[in-house]
């Protein structure tokens, strides 16, 4: 069970030493049980730091998912609800619609979001639901023993693609962030990585921006975080980080695809505002219909 972190010792420590050089985020409650070299611990910490800096912990609701990420609610000291596999975006829709003044986010892996949950994430994004999705993409099903995911790289060996992912039979990696960035309901979409400290810093900035976009009510916000699964990949933690920085980043380019409030968006799709204007235009005749 999670518990609220004790701040007294930290405060006393700060008073004694003058300034805090390093401490655990208040919202990160327990040491994680993730495998050595797994990126989930880093991403949990970034989320905890951002929510703490924005002072949102008291009004945030975490929507969990299925996979290794299911443990997020054991480590983040937040109100949380579990979702069936893939359904986090639907569950978050229900939470946010009923509590629009709360901060709501889903924390999902790539098996959960990019395979079984594609319908839910696409339609939540299309509706412009005002929650944030932290999409941790390590290209594999870690929890169940390292099977191929829709995000698995071509040629990558997994327990269900033992000779390597063959596009003739298993298709191609799914670029979720690029796909969703085409939807006018998406207010923010970025892909980041935890492959080195500089990238981790950028990942944190993206996560922070995603929550700010939610607070500003612009629409759906997504951060795809490229992460590692050393055990599933059959690598040491160091090898996994190198692989993430090179081969994975080559398939999944990093960057901010959409930040509509700042004018960053693909050229093709209409903006949410344009879509609304079009909708109000077509609705106009009904509003001016003569009274019965």
């Amino acid at each position: 069970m999670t518990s609220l972190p004790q701040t007294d010792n930290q405060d006393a420590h700060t008073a004694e030493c003058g300034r805090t050089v390093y401490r655990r985020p208040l919202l990160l409650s327990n040491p994680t049980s993730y495998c050595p070299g797994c990126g989930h611990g880093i991403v949990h910490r970034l989320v905890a730091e951002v929510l703490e800096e924005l002072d949102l912990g008291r009004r945030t609701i975490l929507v969990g998912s299925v996979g290794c990420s299911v443990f997020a609610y054991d480590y983040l000291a937040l109100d949380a609800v579990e979702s069936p596999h893939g359904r986090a975006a639907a569950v978050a829709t229900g939470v946010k619609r009923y509590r629009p003044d709360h901060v709501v986010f889903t924390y999902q892996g790539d098996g959960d979001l990019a395979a079984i949950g594609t319908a839910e994430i696409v339609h939540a994004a299309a509706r412009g639901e005002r929650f944030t999705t932290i999409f941790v993409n390590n290209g594999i099903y870690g929890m169940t023993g390292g099977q191929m995911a829709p995000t698995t790289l071509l040629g990558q060996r997994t327990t269900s693609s033992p000779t390597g992912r063959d596009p003739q039979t298993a298709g191609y990696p799914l670029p979720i962030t690029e796909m969703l960035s085409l939807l006018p309901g998406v207010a923010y979409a970025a892909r980041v990585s935890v492959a080195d400290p500089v990238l981790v810093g950028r990942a944190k900035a993206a996560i922070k921006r995603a929550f700010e976009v939610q607070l500003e009510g612009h629409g759906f916000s997504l951060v795809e975080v490229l992460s590692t699964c050393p055990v599933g990949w059959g690598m040491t933690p160091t090898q996994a980080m190198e692989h993430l920085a090179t081969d994975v980043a080559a398939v999944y380019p990093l960057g901010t695809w959409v930040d509509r409030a700042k004018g960053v968006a693909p050229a093709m799709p209409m903006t949410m505002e344009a879509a609304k204007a079009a909708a109000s235009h077509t609705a106009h005749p009904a509003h001016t219909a003569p009274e019965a």
Partner: protein
Amino acid sequence: MTVAQTPRRIRPALVASPPGTGGEASPLPRRVLMKGNEAMAEAAIAAGCDAYFGYPITPQAELLEWMARRMPEEGRVFVQAESELAAINMALGAAAAGARVLVSSSSPGISLMAEGMSYMAGSRLPVVLINVMRGGPGLGSIGAAQGDYLQAVKGHGHGDYRVPVLGPSSIAEAIDLVREAFAIAERYRTPVILLADGILGQAMEPVSPVFKALAPSTPDWVLEGADGREPRVVRSLHLRPEDLERHDIALQAVYSEIEANEIRWAGEELADAEIVLVAYGTAARVSRTAVQRARAQGLRAGLFRPISLWPFPAAALREASAGARAVVAVEMSAGQLVEDVRLAIEGAVPVFHHGRMGGMVPTPDGVVAAMRQAWSTTDGGTS
């Protein structure tokens, strides 16, 4: 903008307009004619439903359409989901956040919702689900049927859980049971199924225009942000078998409590009945007519009508049929209700089955014939 655009619909007056608050100019009619789907929707609104999630499917689409118009009028949540899977999971999220939630669908969509129902049962979330049953299996037909009986009363999804199931047999009763369903859901923190059928959904009947409200509940488990208290987690996952067994035992205790407190049934002409019909929903409407015809022909028939289908009123049925010569389960399915009837009767009285399937409805004469058949089959044993 709303009323003028939908002139063909009768808008029921709500309980929110008590006498003396401005409704005097147009006093409430004693009865209004309402379609079942719309009456159930309005009953939910009157009962304080905060959020509705649905997906179009015949024969329940009018329920979704009614909510699409009325929920925004009331400043409440309406979302047309991309699938029944999404709808039930939106319901899960809203319920976890403390909303009073209604979801509706018809048979094929209900199958998709089995996953969410299991999770909500495991997570102890109160949600009301209306199933306006149609013919099956598969895409089946859009005619009224009762083929989802076993699905509903035996749990619906995976795992060791039960769901209270209420089976109305008129639109007026459906209105009352929608409110009851919310009350039961919140009393026991469980999903509840209202098992209607295509005829109840599509037919129009006169009903009272006054829909009863339900007092809001103030649960201490909802998610509203961990502000000055320990975080709350709404979950069904308990990875250690010891923990899950403890959780499941606690669930069974809740179900025992429901079995003790929430039995509902009605009887007609049972006092001297030699043949006892057992039927719910639309099949019970047909059976009532059949009882009258049988009695007119000198056959002493009665009707036992379970209203709570789970918990099944087994003891009451056993008692009501103790002096009978035979019991006949009448259903719009291939012998599903009859399984619970046999379990209830425990062999004390011969049990027969009369059913139609696929959207076909039993006729009163067909039911009378089934009663005569039961009579003659049991002739040697009891007379």
